[in-house]
């Protein structure tokens, strides 16, 4: 658990972070969103003492971070930044093993851990272990970055725009991957981004920041249904809001299963774990107002009509 209590950071006379309070529960995926210069990176870097806070308290597992030696603190917190943060003169394996080596694990244990992490992140060990960072694509380098952050199995993970430099397709892939990892590992994650779509997709809780303060915090659908002010609304993308909200809801939560199973050869089908956004798009494409919902094995399991899509509950 990470707690920030009335934290302030001053650079000279300027307050980069101003009276900031936030509690991130164990296993929670918390995303800080805001425009550049809003203090989100500063907040993140205060948690592992890359920047020292000026006032207030920061606690990890109810202990003041100031009570730890900064290096010891950082070794128990995973840290991933944009892909350039890999050590260019070390191989992939050596990069991933950085923190375990600092923690003086013995060699076989480090090797086993590196192997395990590469597998976890879909990097073929034989193929990639001895490559240098310059021989990796952006997406591969970022996977290595995430593996390195996870190396010593920290409870807490800080990620500073880790996917910022990637192309849209790779970024979406890695976001999916991160979600999959998080559902297994249940780390406490603080993630910084300026991309609201990324935040909506990943977060359990979004914290919108502006000028060093929290403007609004809540679940993605809280934010979409009730943005606190015009700034949050503009971050959410104005008129696209409806679609973004639809992108958060699964078809399975709105479909009807009480109707008789329809004819199987209907081309207009949607998967149960797709989102309403996909369903709406399919309706527009097929020019129909009812879709057959199928499960993974393509067996019909229910129906979704435009009415169901528009109204929540059992109308």
């Amino acid at each position, binding site marked *: 658990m990470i707690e920030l209590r009335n934290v302030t950071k001053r650079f000279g006379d300027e307050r980069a972070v101003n009276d900031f309070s936030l509690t991130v529960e164990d296993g929670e995926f918390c995303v800080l969103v805001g425009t550049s210069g809003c203090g989100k990176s500063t907040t993140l870097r205060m948690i*592992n003492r*890359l920047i020292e806070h000026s006032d207030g308290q920061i606690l990890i597992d109810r202990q003041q971070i100031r009570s730890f030696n*900064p*290096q*010891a*603190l*950082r*070794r128990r917190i995973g*840290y991933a*930044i*944009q892909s*350039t*943060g*890999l*050590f*260019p*003169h070390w*191989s992939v394996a050596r990069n991933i093993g*950085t*923190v375990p080596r*600092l923690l003086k694990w013995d060699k076989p244990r480090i090797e086993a851990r590196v192997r395990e992490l590469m597998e976890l992140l879909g990097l073929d060990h034989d193929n990639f272990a001895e490559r*240098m960072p*310059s021989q990796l694509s952006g997406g591969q380098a970022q996977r290595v970055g995430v593996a*390195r952050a996870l190396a010593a199995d920290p409870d807490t993970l*800080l990620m500073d725009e880790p996917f910022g430099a990637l192309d849209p397709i790779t970024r979406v892939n890695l976001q999916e991957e991160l979600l999959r990892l998080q559902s297994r590992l249940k780390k406490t994650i603080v993630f910084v981004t300026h991309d609201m779509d990324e935040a909506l997709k990943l977060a359990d809780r979004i914290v919108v920041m502006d000028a060093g303060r929290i403007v609004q915090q809540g679940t993605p659908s809280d934010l979409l249904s009730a943005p606190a002010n015009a700034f949050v609304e503009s971050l959410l993308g104005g008129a696209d809001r409806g679609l973004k909200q639809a992108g958060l809801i699964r078809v399975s939560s709105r479909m009807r299963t009480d109707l008789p199973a329809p004819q199987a050869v209907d081309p207009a089908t949607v998967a149960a774990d797709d989102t309403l956004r996909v369903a709406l798009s399919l309706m527009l494409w097929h020019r129909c107002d009812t879709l057959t919902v199928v499960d993974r094995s393509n067996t019909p399991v229910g129906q979704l009509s435009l009415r169901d899509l528009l109204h929540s509950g059992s109308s």
Partner: protein
Amino acid sequence: MGLSLLALLGLPLASSQPNRIVPGEGVFLWEMVGWVGALGIALPWLAAVGLAVRPTRGRSWAVLGFVVLILISVPWGLAAFCLAYVDLEQPYARGGIGAGTWVVLFLTGLCLVELRSRLSLSRRHIVSILALTLIAWATALSSGWLEPLALVREYASRSDQFLAAVLYHLALVGAAVAISLVIGFSLALALRHSERLRTPVFGVLSVIQTIPSLALFGLLLAPLAWLSSRYEWLSDLGVQGIGWAPALIALVGYSLLPMTRNAYVALEGVPAVVIESARGMGMGPGHIFFQVRLPLALPVLLEAIRITTIQAIGLAAVAALIGAGGLGTFIFQGLGQSAMDLIVLGALPILVMALIADAAFSALASHFRQGGRP
């Protein structure tokens, strides 16, 4: 390639002279082997030029073969020339290497560089070509037929001095580079911690760099002479107004600017993100310096050592003027006696040393740049 053919035919390839002082008489290719022989050499040469005009991979390899052939045959050609033209009965008669041969050698060298990039030859290829050339020279020399060559004569009359001079030259350069590396690196470290020092330090170093080398040697003469007469232990060490001491000091002075500036740039040039992530991983300052900053700065640092070494090899020759010894001695003796070949005897090893230093440090730097581990 075409130019080298012109040089082969149009310039004297070698000369013969009755003694050391009298300028030699140039001998042209056709005079040596007759018109038929000259044609016999020129035609394949022309063919090689033709092949080089529209290069394919195969043609370039053929040209490369021809270039290597030229390199190998030059010493033997000279040997043949000595046998035929130099009167062995006269003890002072000698043969000189003519302008044509120098130009041919220079141009084939250029061809080799061009072919190297065209065929993307590996380092091993180049080394083996050089080795072949060296073997050709070595066998030609050991056969004794090259003995009348002026360069060889000059060497024979001072072979002991020559070896000593080479070693001395190397020692002077090595000491200067080592000392300036230590001082330059420490200065760079100090400058990283203090913004205020930077401008004055680089200012002073730049000023030293602009003093002409002879003037600097002269300037050091008086204070060093005074110091050594004042303190006995200094003169016991061999520190005097002339000799190795002022030479070493001047060499170090000149080496400091490139060394310090490049070391500074190398250390500062490590991307901030990498340092940031090293800190974020929980590395301490010592770890960050020795495991991240220094290895990443190493290629640029080696570049600094390379530049400094080459510069010092050249400058050390001038140091002979103030009695520091080294290969420069031969150059200045040669100048004094207007004996060209003696100058070449001093200059050639300097050139070779500089080339070797250049190649070695470049290879080392690129090795580390490709991610080799220290």
